[in-house]
Every structure is written in structure tokens, then in C-alpha cells.
């Protein structure tokens, strides 16, 4: 008997420490968050470790989630993104401190964060259907957690244009995933 929950029900139940509701949350969001984590970490085993940390953090700091600030998925996405970025950062730090002990670690770290490797095959195929602008914008906005203002600055684009492009990119994703979903 597979029970379904609305987002509001999930929030209440998980707040009441309902493990069944939490299992449902995991079933519905784990694969997507894993995709995001894997796009940043780029290692299946490590990504699974991060995913585990993400859900335990979601459970343990659930009282921190404020529905007034946005969607539950958005909150979890932020946690996943931050933990994934922390993991690659500490990994890069280790490697870089071994190889180039003379270089400025702050500068190197900044570089490592802004140069993630999104070579997950599935995502690549989907993103290939987007033009270059849309692809970059989705990368930055979704996988790296850039704000649209930051993207506008980085790409030297008006904020309105960035917002429209994010919208267009997601519309394309929607069409693509809808098609896949129907197949």
C-alpha cells in the first residue's frame, strides 16, 4: 500500500519525526539530488556518501526549514549543492596542497569551485538540446547555486535576460522530460 503525500503533509509529518513520510521523501527526491551531487562531485561512490549526508542533514535540521522561504525541494537542493561543493573543495585542497604548495590556496579553491565537471552523460544529452547560453545558465543556476544577479554579472547580461533564459531553458527541459516521461 503505497501512500502518497502532498508537500504540505510531508512537511508536517517529517516535522513530527515520521520515518515513513521521510522514506517517501527519499523515494521522490533522492535520485534528482543524486544527479545534482554527481554532476558536481563526479564520482558515484562519493556522490552516494554525500547523498547520505544530505538526507541525514535534512532529517536532523528539518526544524530549520521555513516554508515561507521557498519550496522543500529548493531547500534540499541547496543542502545537496553545498555539501557536494564542500566535498570537491576539500578534495581539491588536498590534491593541490600536495602538488603546488607555493600557490595561493584561496585563489585555487575559487577556481576549483567555478570549474565543476558536469559530464554526467544523461544530463549532457538533455542539455545538448539547449543552446549554449541556456546550458551555461542552467549549469550556473541549478548546479552551482549562482543567483541570477551573479549570473548576469558573470555573463555580462541584463538581469531580465538571465531570468528569461532560465525560464526558456527550463521550458525546454520540461518538454524533453515530458517526452521521456510519456515514452
Amino acid at each position, binding site marked *: 500500500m503505497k501512500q502518497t503525500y502532498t508537500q504540505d503533509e510531508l512537511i508536517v509529518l517529517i516535522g513530527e519525526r*515520521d*520515518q515513513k513520510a521521510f522514506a517517501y521523501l527519499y523515494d521522490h527526491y533522492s535520485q534528482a539530488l543524486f544527479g545534482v551531487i554527481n*554532476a558536481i562531485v563526479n564520482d558515484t561512490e562519493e556522490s552516494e556518501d554525500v547523498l547520505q549526508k544530505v538526507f*541525514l542533514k535534512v532529517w536532523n535540521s528539518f526544524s530549520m526549514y521555513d516554508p515561507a522561504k521557498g519550496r522543500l525541494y529548493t531547500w534540499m537542493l541547496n543542502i545537496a549543492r553545498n555539501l557536494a561543493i564542500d566535498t570537491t573543495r576539500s578534495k581539491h585542497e588536498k590534491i593541490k596542497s600536495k602538488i603546488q604548495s607555493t600557490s595561493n590556496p584561496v585563489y585555487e579553491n575559487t577556481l576549483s569551485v567555478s570549474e565543476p565537471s558536469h559530464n554526467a552523460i*544523461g544530463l549532457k544529452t538533455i542539455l545538448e538540446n539547449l543552446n549554449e547560453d541556456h546550458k551555461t545558465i542552467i549549469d550556473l543556476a*541549478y548546479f552551482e547555486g549562482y543567483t541570477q544577479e551573479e549570473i548576469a554579472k558573470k555573463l555580462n547580461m541584463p538581469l531580465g535576460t538571465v*531570468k528569461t533564459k532560465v525560464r526558456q531553458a527550463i521550458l525546454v527541459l520540461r518538454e524533453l522530460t515530458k517526452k*521521456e516521461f510519456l515514452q
Partner: protein
Amino acid sequence: MTVNELIASGMLESYILGTTSRQENELLHGLFKTHPALLTEVEAIEQSLIRASARSAKPVSPAVKQKIMAGLSFQSEGAPPDKTISLHNDEATASKLKLYGFAIAASLLLFITSFVYNILLQKQLDSLSSEMAQINASKSVMADQLQIQQASLSDLNNRFQIVSNPKVKTIALNGMNSMAGHSAAVHWNAETDEVYFDVSQLPQSPAGKQYQLWAIVAGKPVDAGMLDLAQTHAVFQKMKAVKGAQAFAVTIEKMGGSAVPSMETMCLMGNV
């Protein structure tokens, strides 16, 4: 801004990506209530992102979920009771079942052991109680013997006290007629007039007859009582008190005795 313009502006996507401001969020949350179509749109956008990213990687190993679910009750205090965990955590259920199995096996073993032990104890108890019965039996035999010994000792003591008293005279009575060769003794306290007769030396009296003791006082026989041979313990039989006796004699009389002694049945006689 109309709802359609708002959708076209890309604000909903920003909202899901978490880049909208607090004021924008408040505005949107208000609009979601009045325009359910906006919320439907938000959910559709979210779903497309979720689907796209879900397809971007290999399926997650089921072990991750198990680890997470197992970690929940471990990490958080005040977690709800275990019943919910058992629905999702097969490992925990399996280990619980294993534990139950052990518990059942252990209690079964305990039961058998205690059962066997009980039988052994019962056997031991049986043999102990029969031993106890034997001991009790021999104890009562010994108690009886002791009682007899004590009785004879006290009798001896009594006799000794009588005999050892310097005021008591022991008069030997010699057998005559039918009892020639026999002898008996009378112990007489001349001060208190108490008379004791040792019946242990007398043979059984003839059937329907009884021995009677006489004291000769001032030449005349005075009844001093009937001798009772049935008294086995008190062999020193206390007789009637006699004052100023010169001699003692025993005759064989009819049951209950006679007022006057029949001289022809006199069988014992002794002077003081």
C-alpha cells in the same frame, strides 16, 4: 503584471532555484492562494528539474536508503517508536527476527534444563524424605529406649534413696511352705512408719489369688496391703504405714485380701 506575464518573466523558475528575495517569495505565496494555476506551474517546473537531474546519473544504490533510514533513530533523539522503522528497514526486521529466534531457542533450552533439573531435584527430595522417615523411626525407638532407661534409673534412684536412708530397716523375709527357698525384703522406716516391699523377687501368685502383707504388732497380725505384681516399674511398692512392727509376713489370700490371715497359706516371714 498578469499571471501569464508573471509566468513568462521566469520568476517561478527563480523561486524554485531559490534565488528570489523574501519580498518576492511573500508575493508569490500570496498569489499561490488566489491563483492555483501558479502553484501548478511551480510544481510542473520543479518536476521537470527533478526528472532532468534524476536522469543525469546512474540509479542510486538501495544500500544508501538503508543506511539513511538506519541512521535516523540513531542520530535524532525523541524519534517515534520503532513500528515505523520496521516498515522500511528490512535489515532491522531481520535482525530483530534473528534476535527473537535466539530468544526462543534460549528460553526453550532454559525450560528443558530446568525441567530435567526439577526431576533430579524431585528424586533427591524423595530419597531424602525416605531417609528422614528412617531417621525419625529410629529416633522414636531411641526415645522409647531412653524413656525406659530413665524410668528404670529413677526407680533405681528411688530404691537407693529408700535403702540408703539410715532410718530405714531392711527386713529379710524367708520362704516357707510352698515358697521354701524363696526370699523377699521389706523396707520399713520406723520413724515415719513407711513400708516398702520389693515385689521383684516374688513368683507369680496362683490363679485367682493374691499376696497380702501383714505386720505383727504386739503379737497380732495387722493388714499392710496387697502386693501388686503387675507394677513392673515401681518394684518398691509402697505399702500401708505400720507402727511398732515386730515382724512381717506374707500370706496367699483370695483376690482383694482377707481381714484375718490364714496361717496355712503363709509363705514368707521375717523378724524386725
